[in-house]
């Protein structure tokens, strides 16, 4: 990773992608209701005309920036900008209301940046060894890894398990549309030439994360102006204050990265877990919820640690760790690069570029955050109704521009309408999209395994690596059952 040609990374295009991605991410994160996934879906069409490295850097810089941006609204107005910033609100808002909004934002920015760096360091150190293992795996193991990814979304989601299962099956089904790669037969194309290439992932992303969000937004108060006190917003904490929270930041960054690796967990659960762990291990737990700086640093370090963590399974196994990383994955696919263990060998410089680029993006976020946070806080006076057409237009462009087919725009509109209804009754959009992304891997591995096993299912049980993966699957299923039983009995 150190034999990387840094001149490639420090080109104007890459630096501009990092700069723009970070600023756009902070802005989109600061706006309540929008988040990294919506922002990435909006910027996806811009990446079509870019080289692979700046395209990915734009999206991951946005992801990193949005996770910090979410804390701005949480702290300044007490409305979380993103799901990962809900826990930040508990101590961020009281500290801001106590007359120290700049200090609260300073803690958040410092923790976010260091948490992000921890994520990058683990990304750099864990991806290589994991890829070396993954490259030795064959189809039966890849199928089981795909199933573990899907099961973790089902097991760890808060919703109804059968609805998550159906969301996954629907995603896998959508992946079967088009030409069957094994036999060349058309499946579910209904005679349409446009469908022979399958349903566009980008159209699905635009529908699910942008247009569906538009429909959700119009249900709320569209004329609400978040009145902000824009005084004392200069983000600053002293060295002594930093030393006081350094272990909280390090521990939470680590928690966030580990949570990021597991598909389906992501920033929300990571930040809550980090917050609870910090509160439980504190000598003054009663001070939490009243403006304790540790209560700001823990969730913020964790949600930014998730960014690097979520990239680990994408690069080493081809499995996106979060919805936003699924969008990064689709950006790579559009550039003709299939994420997975092979990418480390075929596009080594690109992978190293992503590592170092994310590190630069995280450091850039710190300095950009220092100078622009008060600007994003002021942006909160923008009413939501203005955002509705902006997100709609970005979604249309995203869905159409990849292939130039109107059927993709219609798919986006249909996906938005269907998932607007399904989300109201607890169906899982992230489970659907992850299954849709993994559909080809799962089917290909499954059918190829059966060919290798001469039609026998025994091939999934006779290989040592499969035994370990089956054991992992069993542990996940048992823990899921126990967790749900516990939740039911506590109700």
């Amino acid at each position, binding site marked *: 990773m150190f034999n990387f040609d840094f001149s490639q990374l420090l080109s104007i295009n890459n630096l501009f992608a990092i700069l723009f991605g970070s600023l756009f991410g902070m802005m989109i994160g600061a706006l309540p209701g929008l988040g990294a996934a919506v922002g990435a879906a909006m910027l996806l069409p811009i990446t079509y005309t870019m080289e692979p490295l700046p395209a990915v850097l734009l999206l991951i810089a946005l992801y990193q920036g949005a996770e910090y941006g979410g804390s701005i609204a949480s702290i300044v107005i007490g409305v979380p900008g993103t799901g990962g910033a809900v826990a930040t609100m508990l101590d961020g808002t009281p500290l801001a209301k106590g007359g120290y909004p700049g200090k609260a934002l300073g803690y958040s920015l410092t923790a976010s940046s260091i948490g992000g760096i921890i994520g990058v360091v683990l990304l750099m150190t864990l991806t290589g060894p994991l890829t070396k293992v993954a490259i030795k795996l064959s189809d039966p193991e890849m199928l089981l890894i795909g199933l573990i990814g899907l099961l973790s979304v089902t097991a760890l989601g808060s919703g109804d398990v059968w609805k998550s299962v*159906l969301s996954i099956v629907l995603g896998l089904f959508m992946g079967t549309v088009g030409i069957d790669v*094994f036999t060349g037969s058309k499946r579910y194309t209904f005679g349409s030439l446009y469908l022979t290439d399958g349903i566009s992932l980008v159209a699905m992303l635009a529908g699910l994360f942008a247009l569906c969000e538009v429909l959700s937004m119009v249900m709320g108060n569209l004329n609400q102006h978040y009145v902000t006190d824009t005084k004392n917003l200069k983000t600053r904490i002293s060295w002594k204050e930093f030393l006081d929270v350094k272990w909280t930041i390090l521990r939470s960054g680590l928690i966030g990265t580990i949570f990021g690796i597991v598909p389906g967990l992501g920033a929300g659960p990571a930040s809550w877990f980090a917050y609870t762990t910090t509160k439980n291990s504190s000598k003054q737990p009663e001070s939490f919820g009243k403006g304790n700086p540790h209560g700001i640093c823990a969730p913020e370090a964790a949600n930014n640690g998730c960014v690097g963590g979520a990239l680990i399974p994408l690069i080493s196994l081809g499995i996106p760790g979060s919805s936003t990383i699924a969008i990064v994955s689709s950006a790579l696919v559009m550039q003709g690069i299939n994420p997975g263990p092979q990418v480390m060998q075929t596009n080594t410089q690109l992978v190293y570029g992503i590592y170092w680029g994310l590190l630069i993006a995280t450091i850039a976020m710190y300095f950009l955050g220092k100078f622009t946070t008060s600007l994003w806080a002021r942006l909160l006076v923008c009413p939501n*109704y203005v955002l509705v*057409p902006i997100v709609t237009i970005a979604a*249309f462009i995203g869905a159409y521009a990849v292939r130039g087919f*109107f059927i993709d725009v219609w798919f986006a509109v249909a996906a938005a309408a269907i998932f607007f209804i399904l989300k109201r009754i607890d169906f899982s959009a992230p489970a659907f999209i992850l299954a849709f992304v993994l559909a080809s891997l799962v089917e290909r591995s499954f059918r190829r395994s059966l060919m290798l096993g001469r039609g026998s299912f025994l091939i999934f049980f006779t290989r040592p690596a499969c035994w370990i993966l089956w054991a992992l699957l069993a542990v996940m299923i048992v823990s899921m059952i126990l967790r749900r039983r516990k939740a039911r009995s506590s109700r």
Partner: protein
Amino acid sequence: MSSKKASIATYLVFIVLGIAFFIMARNFPPTSGLYVSGPSFYPELLSAVMVLAGVVGIAVTLKAKDTTIELANLHRVFYTFGIIVIWVILWQYTGKFYLISFVGSGVMLWLLNGEPASKKKLGKTLLINCIIIGAFFLVFRVLLKVNL
């Protein structure tokens, strides 16, 4: 709205979809290769899981407690979706993305802004709309040369 009724109705839709997908998959051509599973094998399997999950989901839902789904401002959802559909139809038939988007975005801004109709509201809508469309035109048409 009752979440129990809505869930059961959705599970039923999934069961029907599963059966439909299964029937369609039965018509896929058979494979001639030894040990090569045909194009229908995997979709049939998924259909079966879909139907099964739907049936179990109904059974679980019937035992669960009912809750109410809050659906505030549903009228806004309907007309926003209506605008989106008309927007895409007009774009498809005219091929003028930015012109149609100017109209669609303008209508959205006007309808979703809760202020009473006035010249000030009209001026504000036009100004915001020009900035939005202008920014998209500048980025996608002028800078990135994306054909829409």
